[in-house]
């Protein structure tokens, strides 16, 4: 495992603090009211979440996003006959503010039409990597200003959902290349798209083969094993890891089944209910992304991926002097990008402290 990636130890202060004495309180003081204060503050500020969907066209990315957030984020595109396929990969972002029970969420979805659609797909991951690094760069520039904003707008990609076409065999070379590169920069959640074309047995077999593939190539998808904190996390995350990649089906039309109104796909041989665990694993994906691990995704992005990027950037900044206006960290060579150079911490940090003391 990359020695640079430190796990965000959440038992925070104990590690680096001076001698502390445990104390017994003789009665109620009211410290736990701080949790309510936190909640109030969070609700007032609202939350941000940025998700990126990657996959070939026709795998149901837009539909999946619509289903996840139960709203029309995108118009599900039907490829028209006269529309030429885009020659280069162009990323499109759309931002919405959605609210539920007083909780405001600013959701940004980035789509990648044209990924893997060309004849020669060499280096098609570069624009994506470039975009992700561009967001890190924005944040970094904001962070090192002298007069900083109170709350730095967070456009970093917190989660990348990768759609694997349901071939039923193995991961394709394109998938492997892409996953290898992206897992080091962002949290990746692979899913088997259009899973309604596989039977249950085929799904299981496909899933196992994909898991083997991932292990062979050393690809760590979210939830990463090295960031498990305590035993509860381990248990919870191992359950999730067993089921990755989820086999999902997306649908944004409603149908009546047994008197209930459900989201599903209607076919001649039946209705596939999206939220039925027996039919597909969409609920698992939704729960992972939204209901249980959203904060965790953001934390890992901020504490690990962003820090790694920062280390890499600050170490080479003497080579690339640029001001805050510079965002053209264009398709950086994927090789050195994926493996942050071990920082020459001694030299730089020493000067740092010498001259600022």
């Amino acid at each position, binding site marked *: 495992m990359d020695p640079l990636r430190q796990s*965000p130890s*959440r*038992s*925070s*202060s104990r590690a*680096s*603090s001076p*001698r*502390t*004495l*445990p*104390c017994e*309180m*003789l*009665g109620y*003081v009211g*410290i*736990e*009211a*701080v*949790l309510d*204060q*936190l*909640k109030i503050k*969070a*609700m*007032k500020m*609202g939350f941000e979440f940025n998700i990126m969907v990657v996959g070939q066209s026709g795998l149901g990315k837009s539909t999946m996003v619509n289903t996840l*957030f*139960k*709203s029309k984020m995108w118009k599900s595109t039907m490829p028209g006959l006269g529309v030429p396929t885009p020659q280069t990969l162009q990323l499109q972002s759309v931002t*919405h*503010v*959605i*609210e*539920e*029970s*007083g*909780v*405001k969420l600013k959701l940004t979805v980035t789509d990648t039409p044209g990924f893997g659609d060309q004849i020669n797909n060499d280096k098609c991951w570069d624009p994506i990597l470039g975009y992700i690094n561009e967001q890190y760069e924005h944040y970094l520039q904001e962070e*090192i*200003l*002298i*007069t*900083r904003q109170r709350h730095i707008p967070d456009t970093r990609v917190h989660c990348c959902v990768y759609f694997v076409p349901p071939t039923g065999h193995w991961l394709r070379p394109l998938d492997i290349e892409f996953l290898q590169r992206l897992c080091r920069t962002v949290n990746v959640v692979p899913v088997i798209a259009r899973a309604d074309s596989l039977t249950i047995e085929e799904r299981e077999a496909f899933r196992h083969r994909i898991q083997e593939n991932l292990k062979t190539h050393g690809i760590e998808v979210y939830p990463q094993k090295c960031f498990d904190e305590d035993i509860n996390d381990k248990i919870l995350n191992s359950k999730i890891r067993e089921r990755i990649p989820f086999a999902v089906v997306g649908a944004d039309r409603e149908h009546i089944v047994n008197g209930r109104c459900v989201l599903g796909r209607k076919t001649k041989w039946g209705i596939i209910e999206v939220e039925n665990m027996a039919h597909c694993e969409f609920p698992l994906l939704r729960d992972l992304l939204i*209901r249980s691990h*959203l*904060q965790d995704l953001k*934390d890992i992005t901020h504490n690990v991926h962003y820090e790694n990027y*920062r280390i890499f950037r*600050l170490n080479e*900044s*003497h080579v690339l002097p*640029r*001001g805050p206006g510079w965002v053209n960290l264009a398709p950086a060579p994927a090789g050195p990008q994926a493996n942050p150079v071990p*920082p020459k911490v001694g030299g730089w*940090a020493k000067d*740092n402290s010498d*001259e*600022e003391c």
Partner: protein
Amino acid sequence: MSSEVARHLQKKENTRSLAMSGHVGFESLPDQLVSRSIQQGFCFNILCVGETGIGKSTLIDTLFNTNFEDHESSHFYPHVRLKAQTYELQESNVRLKLTIVNTVGFGDQINKEESYQPIVDYIDAQFEAYLQEELKIKRSLFNYHDSRIHVCLYFISPTGHSLKTLDLLTMKSLDSKVNIIPVIAKADAISKTELQKFKIKLMSELVSNGVQIYQFPTDDETIAKVNASMNGHLPFAVVGSMDEVKVGNKMVKARQYPWGIVQVENENHCDFVKLREMLICTNMEDLRDETHTRHYELYRRRKLEEMGLTDTGPENKPLSLQETYEAKRHEFYGERQRKEEEMKQLFVQRVKEKEAVLKEAERELQAKFEHLKRVHQEEKLRLEEKRRLLEEEIIAFSKKKATSEIYQSQPFMTPGGNVRKDKDRKNSSFM
């Protein structure tokens, strides 16, 4: 309120507000945030500034309902020192890492000019430590034990008249660095009417001198009203005590006097409950937020600007921290080279001088040696001369001795007279 923010967000970024057609489930987000915070634990640092014996430790003990430390400080410290102690408290599932910083010896010296400087230095040092950590390349902020002071409880002695000069000066120098909450200590020494007048006097003095104390935030509806009314009760008049006294049929924390019992948690007797509620239950998070986003940012901005780093360069082009840093680095590097050269030359010069001096000394020594040698030679020659003379004399004497013996050994038939004459003759010739 929430729609306002949504509208504001929309205006800012052309984002659309979307209506959802079903339950998505992200209302659990605040809970996710809370559970992460619980795992991480909280950190809170209180600085208590006040004269020795004014009741700082007792008040903290009472606030957190525990006995932190026992011994009383002496009044004879020559300088003001700050003593920090960290405690871990736990209430249900919330872990709090509480650091209490006490000023030892404040107001005890005869000359109090230097009293508040150590406090300012301490606060700055904590900010500096955090800034250093933040500017490191390989940093671990989530793991960092935050030692920045979140609130300063300033203890005012209950004279009933007005603020002391030392208090005013100290508060003025601290108000831009930390959230100050002034409290009137040992409030059981003032009567109610005097207390009202005292509070009004204090607040007006603070305002007229431009001291910015911490105002409880009134922008959130749920707590705005409470906070606003509390703002009107500042400074809080508090009494601290951990001793329990039986009142009615309960044991309460109180101070017992011959003329009555002052109950700590009785709102009619003192403002302790208000202080506890404001400090811990309602505004702890806001205090930490203010420290981080206002005081720390101010310190950071000042520090970086001091180092000559700015956001905009000479032609008003935005300048990055990196660039200015690099430029400074080159500058310093050049200067360092120059200084090194200077020192080298100085060193060489000194060595030369020393060498010359030593050579001089050597030469002198040599000359002396020569001189001595010469003298010695002369002495030797003279002595030789003397010896020769002496030896000649010895030879002459021994010759004469020999001849006299020969004369003596001649036969002495001659009459005595002759002998005597001869003897006389010999003797006279000898003498």
